C-alpha cells in the first residue's frame, strides 16, 4: 500500500530530474536566460501546456462522459489548420504555398495593434467552433451505437481528413506542410524573451481551461456526465437524456481540442499532415491521460508532463555517443516504450498517477466542511 503511494511522487521526481539534468549536462552546465537549460525548459513546458489542454479535453470526453474518441487527431488537426488559415495572410501570387482562406489581414483593423492579437483570438475560437461542429456531426449517427463503433468511426474520420489534406493540395498545401504561421504578440518581444512570454500565456490558458473543466465537473451537469459514464441505464432511469448529455460532453471536449490544436499551430509556426498521424496525435494524448489518470484533471496535466518529458528526454539522449545499434533505432524504441507504457499502466496501475476522485461536488464539499445543518438534526431527531 505504501509503495503504491510512492509511485506518483517518484515518477514526477524522476521525470523532472531527467528533464533538467540531461539538457544541463548537454549544454555544459550553463545557466543563463538565452541559452542552455532555461530556454529549453521554457519551450518544453510550453509544449507540455499545449498537450495538457488536449489531455484535459480528452478527459472531458473519456474521463468524465465516457465517450470513446479514438480520433483525437481529427479534432487536433482541424483546429490547427483552421487556426492557421485564419491568421495567415491571403496566399501570394506565384508562391508555392497554396491554401484557402488567409483571413489574417482582414481580421485586424488598424486600432490597438490589433494584428498582434485579434486574429489569434478569433482563430482560436474558430478552431474550437469548427472542431465542435465536426464532433456534433459525428455524434448524431454514432453516439447511440456501442462504444467501439464510435471508436472505429473516429479513427476513420481522422484518417479520412488526413487523406483529404494530403490529396487536395490546394486546400492547405497538401503534404508539404503549411508553413509561416505568424506568432501572437511577436511584435512586442525579442526572440529571447518571447519564449517566456509564450510560456506565461500558455500557462494562463491551461489554468483557464483547467478551471472551466473543474468547475463544470463539480456542477450538477458534471455529475450527470459522471453518472452516464458509470451506468447509462441508471442515468436514463433517473430521467436524464443520455444522448443529449453524451453529445454535450463530446462536443465540449472537441471544442477544447480544437483550441489546443490552434495553440499548437501558433507555437510551431508550421503544421503538416505527418504531425497528425494516429500515433503522435491520438495515441500520445491517450497515453498522457491514461498515465496521469483518467477522470482527474490534475492527472491529465501530470500525464502530459510525464509522457512529453520522456519523449523529449529520448531526443536528448540521442545526442550522446550511443552504440550504432541503439542510435539508429532510438525513435522506434521510444515508440515501443510509449506503446507498451499504456498496456503496463492498464495492467498494473489502471487508476494512473492521480486516481479519479470519488466525490466531485462543490455543494457536498461545502456541506462536509460546515458539518450537518441544524435543520437536518432537527428533522433527524423528529424522525427518531
Amino acid at each position: 500500500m505504501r509503495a503504491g503511494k510512492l509511485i506518483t511522487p517518484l515518477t514526477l521526481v524522476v521525470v523532472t530530474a531527467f528533464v533538467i539534468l540531461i539538457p544541463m549536462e548537454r549544454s555544459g552546465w550553463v545557466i543563463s536566460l538565452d541559452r542552455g537549460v532555461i530556454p529549453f525548459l521554457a519551450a518544453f513546458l510550453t509544449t507540455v501546456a499545449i498537450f495538457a489542454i488536449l489531455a484535459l479535453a480528452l478527459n472531458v470526453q473519456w474521463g468524465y462522459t465516457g465517450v470513446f474518441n479514438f480520433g483525437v487527431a481529427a479534432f487536433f488537426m482541424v483546429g490547427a489548420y483552421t487556426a492557421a488559415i485564419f491568421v495567415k495572410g491571403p496566399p501570394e501570387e506565384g508562391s508555392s504555398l497554396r491554401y484557402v482562406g488567409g483571413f489574417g489581414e482582414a481580421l485586424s483593423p488598424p486600432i490597438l495593434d490589433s494584428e498582434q492579437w485579434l486574429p489569434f483570438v478569433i482563430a482560436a475560437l474558430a478552431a474550437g467552433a469548427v472542431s465542435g461542429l465536426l464532433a456534433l456531426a459525428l455524434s448524431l449517427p454514432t453516439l447511440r451505437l456501442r462504444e467501439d463503433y464510435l471508436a472505429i468511426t473516429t479513427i476513420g474520420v481522422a484518417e479520412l481528413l488526413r487523406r483529404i489534406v494530403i490529396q487536395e493540395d490546394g486546400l492547405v498545401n497538401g503534404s508539404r506542410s503549411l508553413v509561416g504561421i505568424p506568432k501572437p504578440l511577436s511584435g512586442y518581444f525579442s526572440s529571447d524573451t518571447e519564449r517566456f512570454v509564450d510560456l506565461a500565456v500558455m500557462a494562463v490558458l491551461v489554468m483557464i481551461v483547467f478551471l472551466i473543466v473543474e468547475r463544470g465537473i463539480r456542477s450538477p451537469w458534471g455529475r450527470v456526465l459522471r453518472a452516464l459514464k458509470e451506468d447509462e441505464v441508471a442515468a436514463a432511469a433517473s430521467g436524464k437524456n443520455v444522448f443529449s448529455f453524451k453529445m454535450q460532453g463530446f462536443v465540449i471536449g472537441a471544442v477544447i481540442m480544437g483550441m489546443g490544436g490552434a495553440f499548437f499551430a501558433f507555437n510551431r509556426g508550421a503544421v503538416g499532415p505527418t504531425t497528425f498521424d494516429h500515433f503522435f496525435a491520438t495515441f500520445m494524448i491517450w497515453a498522457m491521460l491514461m498515465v496521469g489518470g483518467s477522470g482527474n484533471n490534475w492527472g491529465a496535466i501530470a500525464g502530459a508532463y510525464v509522457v512529453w518529458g520522456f519523449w523529449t528526454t529520448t531526443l536528448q539522449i540521442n545526442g550522446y555517443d550511443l552504440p550504432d545499434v541503439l542510435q539508429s533505432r532510438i525513435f522506434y524504441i521510444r515508440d515501443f516504450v510509449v506503446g507498451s507504457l499504456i498496456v503496463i499502466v492498464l495492467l498494473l496501475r489502471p487508476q494512473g498517477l492521480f486516481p479519479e476522485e470519488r466525490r466531485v461536488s462543490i455543494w457536498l464539499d461545502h456541506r462536509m466542511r460546515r458539518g450537518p445543518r441544524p435543520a437536518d438534526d432537527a428533522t433527524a431527531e423528529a424522525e427518531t
Partner: protein
Amino acid sequence: MRRRCWRAKTWPGSTWVISGMSIIPARYADSFSELRDRYRALGDRPGAIGLWALIIALFVWAAVFQTQLFVVGIIVGSILALGAMGLTLVYGILKFGNFAHGDTMMLGSYIAYILLTGTVVGRQANIDTDIGISLEQFPGATTGIGDLSFGYGLLIAIALAGLAMALISIALDRVVYRRLRQRKSGIVIFAIASLGIAFSTRALMLIIWGPDPRRYVSGIHYAKHYPFDVVLKTDQIFIFFVAFGLAVALYVLLFHMKLGKAMRAMADNADLALVSGINTDRIIVWTWAIGGALMAVAGALLAVQASLKPDLGFGLILPLFAAAILGGLGKPHGAFIGAMVVGVTQEVSIEFISAGYKPAVAFMILVLILLLRPRGLFGSTN
C-alpha cells in the same frame, strides 16, 4: 395497435391527421397506419433485402463493366477476408474490437519473411544482415512451383508463421487480455490496451526490420492474360484459393465440429455456455490460436500481393472493421462476404476517385452500414 393521432379541422369538410412524419387526409389515415404496421411486422427483412440487393447489384455491375478491377478486388477481398474472419471471431467470443489486428497481421508476414530469408536490419539503419539460418538455404526452396513466383520455402514459412502467431496471440491473451477479463474491465479498456499493443507491435517491426518496404521474392514476374481481358499473376489466383480454402475450413470447423459448436455457443451467451459445461478458457485459447494463424496467413498473402511495410498494419484496421461490421460482428461467414464487398468497392473506386482515397472508401462503407444497418448482414438484433 393504432397510434394516437392528432386530428384537427383545417378545411371545411375534411379532417387532416398528423401521423408520424406526414400530414394526410383522415380517411386515408387508417389504411396508412395499417400499411406502416405491416411494414414494421416485416421486421428487418426490407433492410436485409435492400442490402443484399445492393451488394449483388455492385458485384454484377463491377463484374460486367470493370472486370479487371473486379477480379483484383476479389483477390484483395480474400486477403481482407482472412483478417476480418479472425477479427470477427475474436469479437464474437471476447466481445471487444481488437485494434491490434492489422499490426499483428503485419507481424505475421514479417515472421514468415525472417523464416524465409533470415534478414534483419543490422547495426546501422539501412544495412541488412543475415541471422545465418533460413529456409532459403534448403535446395530448391525458392524455385517457383509451376507459374508461381515462390517455392516451397515460402509455403513452409507461412505455415510456421501461422503457428508462431497463434502462440504469440495466446501469450498476449495470457499476459494482457486475460488479466483485464479477470478484472471485469469494460470493452473500452480492452480497446485501449489493444491500441497500445498495435503501436508497440509496429515499433517492434521498425526496430527489427526498419521502415523500408521488403519483398519475399525479388525480380519481375509477368502476369498472364485470361479471357475477358483479365490480366492476373498466378500468385494472385493462389491467394484466392488459399483464402477460400481457409474460409471453407473455418466454416466446417464452426458448423460441423464440436469445438465450433462450443465457440458459437460461447459467442451467443458466455455464461450459459459455462454452465452447460463448456470449458470457456479453452475456447478462448482456441479462438486466439485460430485468429492468430489466420492473421499470419493473411499478412503473408498481403505481402505476396504487394510488399511488407510496418506502416501498412494500422491502415488495415478500417477495411477489416468495415468488412467485419458489414457482415455482422461475430459472424465469420458474414465477414467473408463483407471483405469481398470492401475489396471490390476499393478497387473499383479508383476508376472514379484518386487512388489516395482508397482507405477512405472502406470508411465510407463503414459509416453507411453504421447509419443504415449497424447489425450488418448476419448480426443479431441486440
